[in-house]
């Protein structure tokens, strides 16, 4: 067993593209040769030795090689890219795309992994002891096939789109997952030990998903196949609840889908009831502020005004600096003339006119996509590059301040 230690010494914010950190590339290279491997920081080429202090035993075959990253490597991308054998141990966090397209061997991440861990993986084991980000074991944008084989184990939680497009292999997340878990699943096994939210298994054609916890906002395309006991599922080695509800889907997308979805009976008893009443969002106050969902979008009026770039006019303010809400919510807030809308994380707020509007659902608000709305839009993008213009959480409270002109906002708030 030969161990090569890489001690991180780069702490910049721009991630480093380090697809060279694999036993396949290290094999047969001396310390000097490994130190001279090229990596990219943005468009700039650097040497691997600029990023890590490199030491250890360089003589072993890749099968027997252990690459140890002794520290946090959250800004190092593509660790173990396309590796076929050997072992990589990351003692801290791992950056984006850890274990991408790996074909064999083992990667252990003692800390957290950033999004796209195990993307399009074909074999081997990726074990993450902390939390994983979005697109765990997922596929590249637009592709039909995600993970093709191998095993991913996450001891903590994982983000959105876990296992999207998975064809074969196994993903085990012992904690919770976020939305779109197992979207477009074609095969393989996806196990979630905790809870899941929104659209689990949508567009799935085959494969198996197990959610041992609760599912919030169950997708409509699944048809129940009845309650089964854990031993009847044919799944072994997983912590299953005693009774599960089986589903087949996603029938909203395919004629005869082979997708199987098992969810814990005790956590999801409501799902057995075919006619679930539509539940409204509860009224939740934080101080004076009502918790609501923010939707933004361009309006025709707004388009008419800004044709030719007329964004600094008062007319634009009148049309766009407005918060449409359901009349009931409007009354709940005491029919305010103006409201302060605060972003979900509480960091940013903007003052706009309040307007009751029956077209908006209860506990939802609509603000035209504009200079004002953009102050409070959630910057989180699920790795898409586009923030959440619709569906983010904000807080609305009555306020007496002054509605700021677009020019002022651009000059003072965005700076």
């Amino acid at each position, binding site marked *: 067993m030969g161990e090569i230690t890489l001690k991180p010494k780069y702490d910049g914010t721009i991630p480093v593209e380090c697809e060279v950190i694999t036993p396949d590339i290290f094999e047969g290279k001396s310390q000097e040769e490994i130190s001279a491997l090229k990596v990219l920081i943005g468009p700039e080429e650097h040497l691997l030795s600029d990023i890590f202090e490199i030491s250890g035993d360089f003589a072993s075959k890749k099968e027997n090689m252990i690459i140890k990253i002794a520290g946090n490597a959250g800004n190092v991308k593509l660790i173990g890219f396309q590796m076929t054998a050997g072992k990589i141990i990351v003692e801290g966090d791992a950056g984006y795309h850890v274990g991408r397209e790996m074909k064999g061997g083992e990667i252990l991440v003692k800390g957290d992994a950033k999004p796209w861990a195990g993307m399009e993986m074909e074999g081997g084991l990726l074990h993450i002891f902390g939390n994983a980000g979005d697109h765990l074991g997922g596929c590249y944008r*637009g592709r039909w096939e995600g993970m093709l084989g191998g095993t991913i184990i996450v001891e903590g939680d994982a983000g959105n789109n876990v296992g999207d497009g998975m064809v074969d292999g196994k993903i085990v997340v012992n904690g919770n997952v976020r939305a779109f878990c197992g979207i477009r699943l074609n095969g393989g096994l996806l196990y979630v030990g905790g809870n899941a939210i929104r659209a689990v298994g949508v567009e799935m054609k085959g494969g198996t998903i197990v959610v041992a916890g609760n599912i919030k906002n169950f997708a409509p395309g699944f048809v129940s196949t009845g309650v089964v006991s854990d031993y009847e599922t044919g799944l072994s080695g997983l912590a299953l609840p005693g009774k599960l509800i089986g589903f087949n889907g996603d029938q909203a997308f395919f004629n005869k889908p082979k997708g199987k979805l098992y969810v814990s009976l005790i956590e999801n008893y409501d799902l057995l009831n075919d006619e679930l009443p539509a539940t409204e969002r509860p009224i939740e106050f934080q101080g004076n502020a009502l918790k609501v969902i923010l939707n933004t979008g361009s309006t025709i009026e707004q388009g008419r005004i800004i044709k030719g770039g007329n964004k600094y006019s008062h007319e634009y303010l009148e049309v766009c600096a407005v918060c449409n809400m359901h009349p009931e919510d409007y009354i709940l807030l005491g029919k305010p003339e103006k409201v302060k809308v605060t972003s979900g994380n509480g960091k940013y707020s903007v003052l706009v006119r309040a307007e009751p509007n029956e077209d908006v659902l209860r506990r939802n608000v609509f603000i035209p996509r504009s200079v004002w709305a953009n102050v409070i839009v959630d910057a989180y993008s699920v790795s898409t590059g586009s923030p959440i213009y619709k569906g983010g959480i904000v807080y609305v409270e009555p306020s007496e301040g002054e509605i700021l002109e677009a020019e002022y906002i651009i000059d003072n708030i965005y700076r």
Partner: protein
Amino acid sequence: MTKMVIKGGTVYDPLNGIDGEVMDIFIKDGKIVENLSDGELKDAKILDVKGKVVMPGGVDSHTHVAGPKVNTGRVMCPEDHYKSPLKKTHNTHCGSGEIVPSTYAQGYKYTSMGYTTLFEAAVPPMIARHTHEEFKVMPIVDKAGYLLLGSNWFVMKYLKEGNIEKAAAYVAWALEATKTFGIKLVNPAGVESWAWGKNVHSLEEENIHFGISSGEVIKGLCDVNEMLGLPMSIHVHANNLGHPGNWDFTIDTMDLTKGIKPAVNKKTYDTGVKTKYSHEREQSIYMTHMQFHAFGGTSWKDFESKAEEISKYVNKSDHVVMDSGSIAFGNAICMTGDGPGLYDLAVMNGQKWANVDVELECGSGVVPFTYSMKNKVHSVQWAIGLELLLLTDPKKVIMTTDNPNAGPFTKYPLVITWLMSQKAREDTMKICHKWAGERSGLAGNDKEYSLYDLATVTRATSAKAIGMGHRKGHLSPGADADITVYDISPDYNPNDYKAIEKAFTTALYTIKDGEVITKDGRIIETPKGRTYYIDARFNDEIQKEIVADVQDWFRRYYTVNFSNYPVSELYLTRPTPLNINVR
């Protein structure tokens, strides 16, 4: 300028009847010449290609390489790009993409395969500017585009009124305004109905609002074409594409223009180049991607090949030329102006789909698709595409994959192996679905293309059919010095089809306008290619009337301003108008 001798190669030049003759080709100032004087020979570059095969530069008469829908295909399929980066070199740009490569990469890949002339098969008039913007950065190749006119409001209106002269004046105006080359019909009359969610399914069925049938549009535009004397005949993507049992409909479509005589008006651009066999087009209708139109049966269950019937008809008819649209298994992106056709495909496919309505003019659809060897229907389609090429007289058929609809152009070498080697076909038939053999006549066909046949279907016939015979598709003195040298022995072994594929994947030399552009796939020079377009002068009075009509409808219905519509020559690389005077 340059002088060059291509020495000792074995030449295949079908338009001159040269079938494997060892001879020297002389080049001077970008053109092929009879010979060079002793003085000129002294400073001429000598390219020794003894034992290699020499052909005119490849002419692709039907490909989709530029314009909005091609770009939509790229945007929709990021997965086609991230694993195929093409590195920048000292003289080439970077790029990516396998099915629809980026614009620069397309130019490099096409030329390293030996193709020097590309005709983009569908340009929406309103978005012609985009096509030219992409042409502008497409390196090396000569190019032109066909204008989508089959569901154009003006054309349909004038034809319905029976005013063929006005229709002709509009077409002449539109070709010049958009700097395009020929008349393209895609699902004629049907695409207009598609704007209201409908389609037409027969030649007589009238479409919505204009009340004109597909048959009337095809005949009308064919008359217009010959009235103007355009270099190419009408280029027709017939209705009912991809529907089982469409083959007899296809024959009826071809029958429509039987009586119309081709009349090319080439006085002003004729270079006087002579070839042994006429390089003048003889057809009045060019049928595209025939593979999709030669379906038998009544449903996918009794689906079968009707390539034999189609080939029989084409062989005995002088007024038809077709391209094959052969399938190469694997990933493709279907992209066409046939909006309803691709809607049907998208519903079947259940995956990604893009659809566009181009105001008063046409529509478009894009659907990424995979042709699978395990699939019954795809296997038969594969057989149809090859049968059409094998059964039809090479003078009347052109080898294409309708890039990238039935497969990307980079699969041409694969299609070539299936044509040149029966063993290649048999080996493929062993691994694809058994329907390929059972539902078509391919299994019993022992024809193997010779290099002469191959040069015919990839050079001579295509150049002739699109009216570029005055400079492309042959090696007569006076023709453009676009020449390809392939590293394959004239007495190759057809059973060793891997070697054939390799030879046609990368040309040994590609020469464009008398300059060596690629050697063994390495790009040496990246000159800008020409852009051909039609500059037709029609009766001034009628021209004025139709422009007034056009301006009126612009004010009322278009989202763009009339003055922003025409594409100026500034957008074109080496603009090369083909002047046509009908006054």
